[in-house]
């Protein structure tokens, strides 16, 4: 009798340990802690971009480098031909001015892309459902190279003209 109680206690500790390890994996290693905000502790705003580049669902949204929310969904608006990023902002950051700008930046040269919010000067703050229209598209590498080459070509062509 004593023996079986002993075994039960150890088995209980084992199960608790296993579940504890799962909990560690969930909270410490995965991003569930931020995803777990749910609808209660976040509010939703939208941002229209001409081009979102490599932005993905769950990409971070940062203000001054601090993650204040995440991209919840990305849709295509077939009327204005723009991409709509639906962003969930943590409720503790309610004081974001209405004329805030949104840019798609890349972390490092090859890193993941994120939305950076640049606060404006308005006295009024964004509420749930508001739309940010002052946006800057993602920099597409091919375009930059293309523009650079085009500029070079125009430059050298101009030189020729002046010589003649």
């Amino acid at each position, binding site marked *: 009798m004593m023996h*079986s109680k002993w*075994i*039960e206690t*150890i*088995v209980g500790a*084992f*199960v608790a*340990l*296993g*579940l504890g*390890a*799962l909990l*560690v*994996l*969930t909270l*410490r*290693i*995965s*991003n*569930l*802690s*931020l*995803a777990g905000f749910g609808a209660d502790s976040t509010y939703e705003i939208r941002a229209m971009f001409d081009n979102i580049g490599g932005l993905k669902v*769950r990409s*971070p949204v940062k203000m001054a480098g601090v993650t204040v929310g995440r991209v919840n969904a990305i849709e295509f608006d077939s009327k204005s031909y723009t991409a709509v990023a639906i962003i969930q902002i943590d409720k503790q950051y309610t004081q974001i001015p209405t004329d805030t700008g949104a840019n798609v930046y890349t972390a490092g040269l090859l890193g993941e892309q994120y939305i950076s919010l640049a606060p404006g000067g308005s006295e009024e703050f964004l509420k749930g459902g508001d739309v940010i229209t002052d946006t800057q598209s993602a920099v597409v590498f091919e375009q930059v190279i293309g523009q650079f080459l085009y500029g070079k070509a125009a430059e050298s062509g101009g030189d020729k003209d002046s010589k003649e």
Partner: protein
Amino acid sequence: MSALRALGRAGLSFFERLGRGHIFLLYTLGGLPATLYRWRLLTSQVFALGVLSLVIIAVSGLFVGMVLGLQGYNTLVDFGAEESLGILLALSLVRELGPVVSALLFAGRAGSALTAEIGLMKTTEQLAAMEMMAVDPLHRVVAPRLLAGILAMPLLAAIFSAVGVYGGYFVGVGLLGVDEGAFWSQMQSAVDFHDDILNGVIKSFVFGIAVTWIAVFEGYDTAPTSAGISRATTRTVVNSSLAVLGLDFVLTALMFD
């Protein structure tokens, strides 16, 4: 001609065993509700299969994590991306190494013991004696062991992964000087609960079913001699390891397309 006949015989006996295994599983599953009432049987089996495997699982997890940390750092530091060590560690442990390696260890540590135990019960006619007393050995002996194995496997895999991540953390952050904040934050932004952790748990659950099923069936189906038990034990380890690796490929292809 005789070679062809031997091939046919081998094929037939393979499918016959496969069929017996499934009928065996079906009967055993019928005994699961009764097992839940007699949970003492279950706890003693969880003790034998889970708790006694804990040490080898935890130590292996620690060393696998530490080796991953060391090797990953050496490669990543060339690209100046040593902060990504956390991602490498967490994803490879949670998705693959945790479920697979712990299932292989479980097959060697607990599966072989299960087969030998049930095989010896059969050889010494304990199972036949139970049947004489109108006690169904499939329900009384096999069902609690099957359920205990299925329950213990995901817990052991979770412990393996968690210990492994901390082993890699110890080597990467503690010894090699990776930035602690970047280590955790990059890991957290890259690992998803549903896609990675939940899929890892599902994998280890499936492996638990496969390994324990093979182990109890090989034990129950053993030839009742000492040589038969030794063959059955070997077959358990070989077959369940192969099953785990094969299933891992199928599950990975289904989960992470």
